[in-house]
């Protein structure tokens, strides 16, 4: 397989895993309905991390799909 084909295959594979794992992280919740509590600004989140000595999980996303809002 040429290098270009290999890279394309990897990109497509990464894209499908990206969608699945991103969706899994986004929709994760406990049986009690609790979910990940997201800080939505870098400034607030960083301040909280420093203040509480917690590491940061950062995952930016655009609140629109193909320009249509209401969906990541």
């Amino acid at each position, binding site marked *: 397989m040429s290098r270009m084909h290999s890279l394309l295959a990897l990109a497509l594979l*990464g894209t499908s*895993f*990206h969608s*699945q*794992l*991103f969706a*899994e*992280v*986004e929709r*994760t*919740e*406990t049986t*009690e*309905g*609790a*979910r*990940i*509590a*997201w*800080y*939505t*600004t*870098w*400034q*607030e*989140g*960083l*301040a*909280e*991390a*420093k*203040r*509480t*000595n*917690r*590491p*940061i*999980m*950062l*995952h*930016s*996303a*655009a*609140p*629109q*799909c*193909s*320009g*249509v*809002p*209401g*969906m*990541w």
Partner: protein
Amino acid sequence: MVTASRDWVCIRPATYESEIEAAILKRLFRTRSGELENTVFALLDPNGKRITRGGRSPSFVFADAADMATEMLRIAKDFKPKKVARDLPTIADVRLGLNVAACDNVPLVVAWAKNAKGLPALRAKLAQAAWDTGIVGRAHYVIAHETEGQVGVSEVAEFEGKLGVYVVVPDAYGLEGRVLEYLSSKKELAAGLREALGRYEPVTKNDRRHVREGKRKGLDWESELPVTGPQERRRR
């Protein structure tokens, strides 16, 4: 994953909504296009320095959600969290808040203060309720008054503008909302929030149908910055 996340600060900036954040995101992960793209993922220490390599999503770094949760639990042991009350995660204004809440299929809680002086007290009170075990992560929050954070409040039906807390149901596209419940800020908030969240009915969305119907309606979200992700630009 939810359990693992409690020892972390989880930050999800809305891409293309802040120039300052865009610069930070580009620094954390250099995309092939060289442009800011829709998503960036990284694990960082409390000072914002990278612990793992960055990527477009967790799948660039981890095999699956279980792998990610295991690693997050392991890393968290290196940092002893301080025993202080958690701050309230907030969204800049009602307009963006409605959209983000719609994306997550949760209500938007709008705490309305009389003026800027009233914001810190209202924030602290709401933070206590927001981190209650039965509430955490089940809503998004905006703290606002007449001149701050108020953009978009005119799109919320039955919003009265009196001091207090409004539990707002966003429409499917996050462009409008309606008040599900009003809670006086003079009373204890956790019980009222729990009750309102229990009454909230999430909308079932099909990705393709949502986008197709949205395009048919002519909906087009105007972000603060131009969309530069190559895949997203091709889809528009």
